[in-house]
């Protein structure tokens, strides 16, 4: 049992945090997130250059990390900075053939992961997207950064059951839109699109996605908590700082307690990723992150008061992204329902 990060991971965390501090401050993020394309090709290239994509993959996959703890570390940092670039799509590239995956790691090829469908945010066994004779048809919703994608990694049913398929972007019909929490997404329809069946089992990619979303949520929670505690110490009413009111102190402590529990849930999921407990602990992490995420987002806004209702105040954007991480790939109920059988 050891909770200290390895030297390699400590260096990776330093690299990530230095880059995000220097190059991805809140104003920059808001410009990127609200821009016409909703991401930055320039920063994406820099992040690939720094190895932030490569860290998501094992050495035999062409990367230099790929452990659950690498994925958790990267996404926690991305969460804290509210990064909108297409990391979730890149993470799913584990399912791709080696040559494409290496292009993804280099930042040249951008995949989007298309899983949720109208009415099914997570369910693997109720997919209505189907593949027959190598042709994929169906609709996926709210696919993150779909317009940026060169290829789509798509979950679908064929005669052997649910699996992952690769479809080139030229065969995807997009209805694109800006996202409530920044960046862009699209509903994507495929109509007899030529599709290549990928060998990676669907659940291994889903478990990685659940871990990444939970870790991202954790990073945002920490940011929300820090901002809130700072504000409580600064803002004065009735002649004293808000931080002196016990009702508010206890609510802040409840936030800290649940965030620590979420950190433990992410550690559990990272530890078990790739092992027999992977699905169980990924579900537990997503449940915990979704339930806690909503609490943190709502409490952070409430404890601030009116200022957190404004576009100008950065907490509001963190709260929005935190809330949306819970909506994606199954909310707390979806994963609570799955948990007992896992």
């Amino acid at each position, binding site marked *: 049992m050891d909770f200290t990060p390895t030297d390699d991971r400590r260096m990776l965390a330093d690299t990530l945090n230095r880059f995000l501090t220097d190059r991805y401050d809140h104003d920059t993020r808001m410009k990127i997130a609200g821009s016409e394309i909703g991401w930055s090709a320039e920063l994406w290239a820099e992040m690939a250059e720094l190895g932030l994509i490569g860290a998501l993959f094992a050495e035999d996959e062409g990367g230099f990390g790929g452990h659950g703890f690498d994925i958790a570390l990267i996404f926690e940092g991305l969460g804290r900075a509210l990064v909108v670039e297409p990391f979730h799509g890149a993470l799913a590239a584990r399912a791709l053939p080696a040559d494409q995956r290496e292009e993804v790691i280099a930042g040249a090829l951008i995949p989007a992961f298309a899983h949720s469908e109208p009415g099914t945010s997570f369910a693997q066994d109720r997919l209505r997207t189907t593949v027959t004779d190598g042709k994929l048809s169906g609709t996926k919703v709210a696919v993150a950064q779909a317009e940026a994608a060169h290829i789509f990694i798509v979950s679908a049913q064929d005669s052997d059951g649910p699996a992952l398929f690769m479809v080139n972007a030229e065969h995807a019909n997009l209805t694109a839109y800006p996202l409530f929490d920044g960046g862009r997404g699209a509903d994507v329809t495929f109509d007899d699109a030529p599709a290549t069946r990928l060998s990676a089992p669907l659940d291994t990619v889903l478990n990685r996605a659940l871990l990444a979303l939970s870790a991202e949520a954790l990073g945002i929670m920490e940011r929300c908590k820090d901002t809130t505690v700072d504000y409580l110490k600064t803002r004065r009413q009735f002649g004293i700082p808000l931080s002196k009111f016990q009702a508010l102190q206890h609510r802040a402590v409840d936030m*800290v307690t649940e965030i620590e*529990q979420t950190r*433990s849930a992410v550690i559990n999921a990272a530890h078990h990723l790739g092992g027999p407990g992977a699905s169980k602990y990924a579900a537990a992490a997503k449940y915990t992150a979704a339930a806690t995420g909503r609490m943190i987002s709502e409490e952070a806004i409430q404890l601030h008061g009116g200022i957190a209702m404004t576009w100008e105040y950065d907490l509001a954007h963190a709260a929005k992204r935190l809330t949306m991480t819970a909506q994606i790939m199954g909310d707390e109920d979806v994963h609570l329902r799955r*948990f007992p059988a896992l």
Partner: protein
Amino acid sequence: MNLNFTPEQEAFRAEVQEWLADNLSARLADKVRTSKHLTKQDMEEWHAKLNAKGWLANHWPVEHGGPGWDPVQRFIFEHECALAHAPRVVPFGVNMLGPVLLKYGTDEQKAHYLPRILDGTDWWCQGYSEPGAGSDLASLKTAAVREGDHYVVNGQKTWTTLGQHADWIFCLVRTSKEGKPQEGISFLLIDMNTAGIEVRPIYLLDGDHEVNEVWFTDVKVPAENLVGTENMGWTIAKYLLTYERTGIAGVGFSTAALAELKRVVAQTEKADDPLFAARVAKVDIALENMKTTNLRVLAAAAGGGAPGAESSILKVKGTEIRQEINALFLRAMGPQAQPFISEALEDGFNGPETGPDGAAYAAKDYFNNRKLSIFGGSNEIQKNIVSKAMLGM
């Protein structure tokens, strides 16, 4: 970063399990599992077994009879004991007074009292709370006035757990009214057989006699029974509150109770109720998370970090989890939680069984464990501590 225990730690766990299998009697384990009333003899029997093995005072230094374990070993030991349904070690002598004497006691006090704690000669109880001093402990009024070579103690302590069995009581007493209330408190050891002490039972809401009032009327206490110096009692009390408490989250107890809950639910109408399944899954996940939170705090402590306010988080969340499991257990019994048959919780009860397994003690466990969020610094006090120490609020 690695959640696995080391091979050495796993070997230690196996050693503990094997020892428990050989030394924890089925009679005692069954009494604990089914929340039967433990007698003084039951508790002394268990202490004696642990002491014979050298595992009773598991956080004392080796030279005073401790086994030399690190925090992780202590956690493993306490966890395995809970899973095996071993009786709790009565904490007052071993876990509370012991560490205080080790840090603040004179050589004479250590030499006299520590061996008697280990061999069971002295049964200790704790004299902290008073009718007017609960969460606001520093407002305590029980007075000790120095007269020559002794103190004269007058006042009243309350919530004195198992005081009816005790030979000695360690007390916080007021020795000065100068300055802040915290500055006039001393830590005094008092023989329960001294003239002027009266113990009166308090019956709890489950009908049990677990706690007491202890009244002091002109009780003469030798001055050498003072621990530390006069008026440093608050420092000692605070030391005990932040003293490393590896088991404060009760993860082992919760794990055992959750397993019982899942087993028993299968016999009830809740077996195929999805709403109930969701409630169980929620607390199951919270407990899985808490196991790791607890280990993280332990690892920080083992690495030299002081687990101060973090143990308050463990206490708050850990007790909430335990209480929720008790509440679900009670609810699983439905109307069959109602029979109130005290004899059913005694050895050798041969009356008719009413309800599913656990019906006899579901309500008792639920109501009795409401204390968890009240004692040892209420959960609200714990939140005050976290707010101040971790958040600087």
